[in-house]
C-alpha cells in the first residue's frame, strides 16, 4: 500500500491528477477494524476531464513506471487500484475535504469518515450499510455528522430510512 501512496503523490506532483483521496474499504480501515477487500478505490480529479478517455494520462503515467492494467484497475504492488473521477457534488466535497493520514511515514490522502458514510448511504448495498454501522460503532463519526452531510447532499430521506431500519428498529 506504501507503493500506492508514493505513486499517487508522484502523480499529483507531476500534475497528472489535481488531487486524489482514498475511499472504499481501505479508507474505512483507517477508522474501523480490518475488512477483507480485493481492490483499492481512489477518487481523483483531473486537470482536464474532457474527452472520452479521461483516465488515459493516469494509465500512461502508470505504464511508464511498469504498472499494468488489470481489468478496470491498475495493478500497483499487491493491489489492483481503481481510479474513479469525482462524479457528484458529494464526491467532489469528499475529495476536497479529505484528510492527510500517515501511512508508514508517507502522507496519504483519505476521505473523511462522514463522507465515507454518506457515500455508502448513497450506494445503499448491504456492504455499504455495514460500512456505515462500522463507522458509527468505531466512534469516528456521529449520527449528527452523517445526518448533516447527508442533508447537504440531498440524502436526508435515505438517512432517515437508514436510521429507522438499523438504529431505531
Amino acid at each position: 500500500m506504501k507503493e500506492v501512496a508514493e505513486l499517487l503523490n508522484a502523480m499529483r506532483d507531476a500534475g497528472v491528477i489535481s488531487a486524489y483521496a482514498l475511499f472504499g474499504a481501505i479508507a474505512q480501515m483507517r477508522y474501523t477494524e480490518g475488512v477483507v477487500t480485493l481492490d483499492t478505490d481512489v477518487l481523483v480529479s483531473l486537470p482536464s476531464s474532457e474527452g472520452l478517455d479521461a483516465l488515459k494520462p493516469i494509465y500512461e503515467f502508470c505504464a511508464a513506471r511498469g504498472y499494468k492494467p488489470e481489468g478496470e484497475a491498475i495493478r500497483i504492488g499487491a493491489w489492483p487500484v481503481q481510479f474513479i473521477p469525482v462524479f457528484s457534488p458529494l464526491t467532489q466535497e469528499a475529495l476536497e475535504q479529505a484528510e492527510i493520514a500517515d501511512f508508514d511515514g508517507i502522507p496519504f490522502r483519505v476521505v473523511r469518515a462522514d463522507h465515507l458514510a454518506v457515500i455508502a448511504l448513497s450506494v445503499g448495498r448491504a456492504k455499504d450499510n455495514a460500512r456505515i454501522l462500522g463507522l458509527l460503532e468505531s466512534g469516528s463519526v456521529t449520527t449528527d455528522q452523517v445526518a448533516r452531510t447527508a442533508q447537504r447532499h440531498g440524502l436526508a430521506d435515505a438517512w432517515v430510512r437508514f436510521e429507522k431500519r438499523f438504529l431505531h428498529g
Partner: protein
Amino acid sequence: MDDKVRKLLERQAEWQKSRAKLSWAEKVRMVEAVRESMAALRRSWRSSVSSRPETNNLDGRPSPDGEPHAP
C-alpha cells in the same frame, strides 16, 4: 445465558474491538496477508481438483470450472 458463555463473548468482543486500535498500516498489512492466504488456498484447491478426473457440483452435475458449487 450461561455466565461462562457471556464472559467468553464479552472477551471476544473486546478482542475484536482491540483490532480496530491497530494502526491503519497494520490493518492494511493484515488484510494483505489474508488476501495472500486466500489466493494460496485457491491455488492449492485448483491444483487438487484438476488432478481429479472430474469434479462434480454439490448436486452431482459436472462442474465447468472444476470447483464444486452449491445448486
